[in-house]
């Protein structure tokens, strides 16, 4: 008997606490068993051939089994961001953007940017856009005997695709951007606030390339409760489901597979885009070539996510107003930055929309 304390309440509380501990213990045991039995999960299992290599980059050409629609012959080149890996688009069987595009009869090529070494610290945005991307586009054009191809950019890759389309409009038949930041003068995203006052020069001079681990930490911090707590709590709740465990591990593998960003590319992107917002104002210059968005006269499909914490809608939605073409479309999906590619709901919207939009515009073009 403890003085001043209701004995019944104490007993009840103790019983409840022990019960909760027992449940937690069982969940942890189940989680350990699930992780031990999961084996080595694989990402990016859609078969492909490498059709071009240059320095660290390679171009994947996916083997599709889908039936091509009449007149649908223009290949789609996907440009992923320099942050994280392009395996996001082919994360798991059944939920692969690449697989779904192939099933719709689209001929898919994708640039794998690889892992930059110290030797690549001086690679600029110009080297990526005017060098690698241009070479890859030329290779695909000549492989397919076409004067122009379809281009799709993901996140930062979308920004690079916009730059490329403005500099080489004759080589791009249709342009698709997904969650691609082009207007950086927004306070809506935390990343915009954080990079705004950063001494980028000192960071790049000190590190050379910006380490992937550093970028990863920053991305996790953007939503710490969901990405560092809730995700793992949910895992213990659902670890009895083998499929869930495998998908969870695939996502973890992807998140922590972070290549560094070449230093000079980061310097220019952070300063000219995030800090000065030059791209949307037609003031950006890469390797001496000014970028004028009015040169983008091809059809444009601009897709972004309403709940994107990395690239908020305000950073994406302005692009169609600034380009020179009239066939432009903004599509806002009700999901987040990553969910747009991996969630069941958005996958049922994203790839059908892209395939239908491309099919409408894939009119016969002159051969090379």
């Amino acid at each position, binding site marked *: 008997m403890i003085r001043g304390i209701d004995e019944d309440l104490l007993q009840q509380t103790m019983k409840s606490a022990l019960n909760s501990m027992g449940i937690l213990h069982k969940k942890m045991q189940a989680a350990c068993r699930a992780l031990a039995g999961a084996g080595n999960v694989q990402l990016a299992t859609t078969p492909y051939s490498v059709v071009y290599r240059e320095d660290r980059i390679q171009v994947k050409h996916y083997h599709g089994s889908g039936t091509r629609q009449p007149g649908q012959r223009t290949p789609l080149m996907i440009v992923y961001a320099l942050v994280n890996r392009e395996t996001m688009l082919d994360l798991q069987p059944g939920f692969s953007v690449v697989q779904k595009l192939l099933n719709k009869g689209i001929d898919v090529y994708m640039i794998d940017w690889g892992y930059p070494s110290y030797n690549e610290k*001086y690679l600029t945005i110009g080297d990526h856009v005017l*060098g690698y991307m241009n070479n890859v586009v*030329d290779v695909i054009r*000549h492989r397919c005997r076409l004067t122009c191809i379809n281009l799709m950019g993901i996140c930062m890759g979308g920004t690079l695709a916009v730059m490329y389309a403005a500099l080489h409009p004759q080589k791009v038949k249709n342009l698709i951007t997904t969650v691609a930041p082009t207007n950086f003068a927004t306070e809506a995203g935390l990343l915009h*606030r954080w990079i705004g006052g950063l*001494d980028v020069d000192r960071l790049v001079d*000190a590190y050379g390339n910006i380490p992937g681990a550093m970028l990863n930490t920053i991305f996790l911090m*953007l*939503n*710490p409760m969901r990405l560092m707590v809730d995700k793992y709590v949910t895992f213990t709740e659902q670890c009895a489901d083998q499929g869930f465990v495998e998908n969870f591990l695939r996502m973890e593998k992807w998140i922590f597979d972070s290549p560094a960003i070449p230093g000079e590319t980061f310097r220019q992107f952070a300063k000219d885009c995030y800090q000065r917002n030059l791209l949307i104002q037609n003031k950006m210059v890469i390797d001496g070539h000014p970028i004028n968005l009015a040169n983008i006269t091809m059809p444009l499909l601009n897709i972004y996510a309403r709940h994107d914490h990395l690239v908020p809608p305000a950073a994406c939605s302005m692009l169609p107003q600034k380009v020179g073409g009239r066939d432009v479309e903004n599509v806002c999906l009700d999901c987040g930055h990553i969910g747009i590619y991996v969630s069941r709901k958005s996958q049922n919207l994203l790839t059908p929309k892209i395939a239908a939009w491309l099919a409408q515009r894939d009119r016969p073009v002159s051969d090379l």
Partner: protein
Amino acid sequence: MAQDDTSRQSVAVALSELLKASADLWTQFNHAWNTGNRSNASATSDHQGQAAQPAPEPDPEAEGDRAEAEVRQAPDKNRTEAQAQWIEMLMRHWWAGSPFPRDPPSATEKEDVHQRSSPHQETVDSINHWQSEWHKLFWSMHRIYGFGASADATGELEKDAAKIKEYQEALQAFLELMTIPVKEKFQAFSQAQGADVKTEAEPRPDSGTIYDQWMRELEQRYAELFASPQFVETLQRVIHAAVDTHEARGGLVANFLKAASIPTREDYDRLLREFHELKRTVREFARRRSNAEPGKQT
């Protein structure tokens, strides 16, 4: 590079001077050794002279054994004394001329050294000379190889320590900020528990579980924190402090590499930059050529 050669030359000169001084000292040592032997020899002959006198005792056999033992022991004793005296002097002078930092000798010590050294002035001079050359060699070593880096870096270390401290303080401030939302949430929870157990223990009908409520509230609180100017300032302070410490480590490595005449990161970077510039020039040339001849693949 020319400066490195000069540095190496000065070290080589100091080394050869030290070797010469060592040879002089060795001569002095031999002299001391031989002097000890000679004095031992004279002592032996004196002893032999005494032994040659008529013996007071009639036991010639026992007397002969004793004399023989003394003859054997006396040179060792004298030689040892001479050597001990010499070594003591060497040690005193070695310490007096040591290049290592120490308190200067007191006036009494100096006087003592002078008085006690005076009977062996030639030896003392040799020791002093040897010490002086050793001193020169020691202090010229920092000009070559890794020794230079350690000497140059000594002054930098204090600055580096300050940078590390600044980084730790910035990190601490950052982590404290990060824990604020959780602390506040726990405080609010405990206050609510004190007032009315049911207010927080039972979820509101429309808000899911307690866990969901907590997650939402903390997420909201973190979003506010991350958007605040105070957080942005602290985050930038941490990143800049981390850059400072990274640069300090890089600077230390660069000092060692420079001292060892190994190319530094700066040298390598210069090459890389030129290489990439060259690639860009070639690419631009190919682009212009392609524009001039549109049908030709580059």
